[in-house]
């Protein structure tokens, strides 16, 4: 076990000494900061005025009345246009809060796609680069099984993905709290699930959403890792993975009528669809999606293992 730890240490050492690792982290930090400043300067991004005075219930009711008349113009609170949501808040006594650090954390979940991109780059590179550099020949002539070397690389990719998500979460929280304050931190978050409104604590809700995104990223990264282990080519692995990540959801729209569409990987990768909003295919459930993902995941890992350990390392 101790030599496995040493292998992971080696992989981290190599990651840390590559400029691209730091550039990716810097890009993420700059985007979070940039979004924070943009949201701070332009209130249109942060839902404008919020009815959070003492008589907020009355204000929301007035707005609801105006909305039900069909008048969309001159709304006092443009961020609260959903009659049902407003009603839910009034009934459950959840006052709207001004845009705060938690909201910023929630909005920045959109940047998880970028984290995914970076994780794909690292996941594809960690195996294929050794072939490109030629160092694979020195790596595989040690008294260690190829499986162990492959696993150490995979564990490094997973911890990298996790670290980048944690960085996104924590850095967003710090930036958000600094720019938008911590007002309403204890207030529950109101969201819609399958047409019904619900509420949940902000900390647990945001952690759940980030966690579910992390699963999606893990699947994509594992896919890139597999392509790299099979074809030993960084560009191919990155290109193919990004293409599938982008094209995946559009493919689902084309095939949505087919009965087998729900078995396609990309119908299931977005687990947040079960938490907020509604699933892309109506008869999908969280349990079903997790099962499908698990099957794909195991297949990806098996293929990586078979190709990496069995294939000859021939001349380039």
């Amino acid at each position: 076990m101790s030599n496995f730890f040493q292998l992971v240490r080696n992989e981290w050492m190599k990651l840390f000494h590559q400029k691209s690792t730091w550039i990716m982290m810097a890009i993420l930090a700059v985007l979070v900061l940039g979004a924070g400043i943009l949201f701070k300067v332009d209130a249109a991004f942060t839902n404008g005025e919020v009815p959070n005075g003492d008589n907020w219930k009355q204000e929301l009711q007035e707005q609801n009345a105006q909305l039900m008349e069909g008048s969309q113009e001159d709304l006092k609170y443009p961020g609260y246009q959903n009659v049902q949501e407003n009603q839910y808040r009034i009934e459950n006594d959840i006052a709207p809060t001004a845009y705060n650090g938690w909201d910023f954390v929630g909005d920045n979940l959109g940047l998880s796609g970028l984290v995914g991109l970076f994780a794909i780059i690292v996941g594809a590179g960690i195996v294929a680069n050794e072939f490109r550099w030629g160092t694979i020949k020195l790596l595989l002539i040690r008294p260690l099984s190829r499986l162990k070397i492959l696993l150490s690389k995979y564990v490094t990719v997973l911890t990298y993905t996790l670290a980048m998500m944690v960085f996104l979460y924590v850095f967003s929280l710090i930036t958000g709290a600094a720019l938008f304050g911590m007002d309403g931190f204890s207030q529950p978050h109101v969201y819609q699930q399958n047409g019904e409104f619900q509420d949940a604590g902000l900390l647990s809700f945001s952690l759940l959403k980030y966690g579910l995104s992390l699963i999606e990223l893990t699947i994509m990264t594992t896919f890139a890792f597999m392509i790299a282990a099979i074809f030993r080519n960084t560009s191919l692995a990155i290109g193919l993975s990004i293409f599938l990540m982008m094209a995946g959801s559009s493919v689902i729209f084309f095939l949505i009528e087919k009965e087998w569409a729900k078995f396609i990987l990309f119908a299931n990768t977005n687990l947040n669809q079960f938490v907020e909003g509604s699933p892309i295919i109506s008869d999908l459930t969280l349990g079903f999606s997790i099962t499908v993902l698990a099957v794909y995941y195991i297949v990806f890992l098996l293929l990586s293992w078979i190709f990496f350990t069995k294939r000859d390392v021939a001349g380039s």
Partner: protein
Amino acid sequence: MSEAVMQLKNVKKTIGKKEIIKGLDFEIHAGEVFGFLGPNGAGKTTTIRMMVGLIQMTEGDVVIKGHSISRDFKQAIRHVGAIVENPEMYPFLSGWKNLVHYARMMPGITEERIHEVVRLVGLEKRIKEKAGKYSLGMRQRLGIAQALLHNPSVLILDEPTNGLDPSGIREIRAYIRKLAEEEGVAVIVSSHILSEMEMMCDRMGVIKNGELISIQMVHETQQREDVEVVFTASPVDQSATVLKELTGKDVEAGEETLTVQMAKEAIPDVVSELVQKGIRIYGVNIHTSTLEDKFLDLIGEGAVE
């Protein structure tokens, strides 16, 4: 003869329908430098890759210190240090960190040992620099350093003097000899530079189109075999008769010259005999058939199938 550290037993490799290695059988012993010689495309690198388990054999086996590389990889490979083709290092890591990286992959290598190999290959001054800034010669040294970290019994070096300047070549050569003679390491050196191999190796195996066509002792060939001696003497007829009597070999007589295959050691005696018989000698020349001639004889020119 000392123990065989590495044995190749009927090693074959077939890719598709083409048999590229056609049954190699040889042994390498502790304390010897074995030269692995052959033109490009003969199968040197493929064989070396099979020796270290990077490529699977189609048939046969490589046994290192009693452990099969295909069935008992970990036990076999722990006795091997190698550079396969070019000494490729992580360019973004310092020389030192490159060594630490490989040291972590093998049991029981102390920091002290890493310092030791750095001194051995003479890289102390620049070991903290990034390997990407190294010249090919320096990377070659770093490559040798990583191969020596774990005190291997077999050292496999693919073209080790590639990219070194003449003084570097001499150093590496001396160092390889020292490893073999003092530490008893079996060193396998592949090369196509014959003069290089002559100076460095004890035995040489010549490979052509995936077949081992000759194994010979390097120094033996130079000392014991007859050399071609050309005498310029007159009268030619009489000299030919005398020479034939003295050497017991066939003499090829030209217009003014006589060519005979004979032992180098016998030349002075033959000359004094000829002089005593009143033959006038204008010249004695030795044509040493170099290893290169032999090598070309063996493989033929442009011999890749």
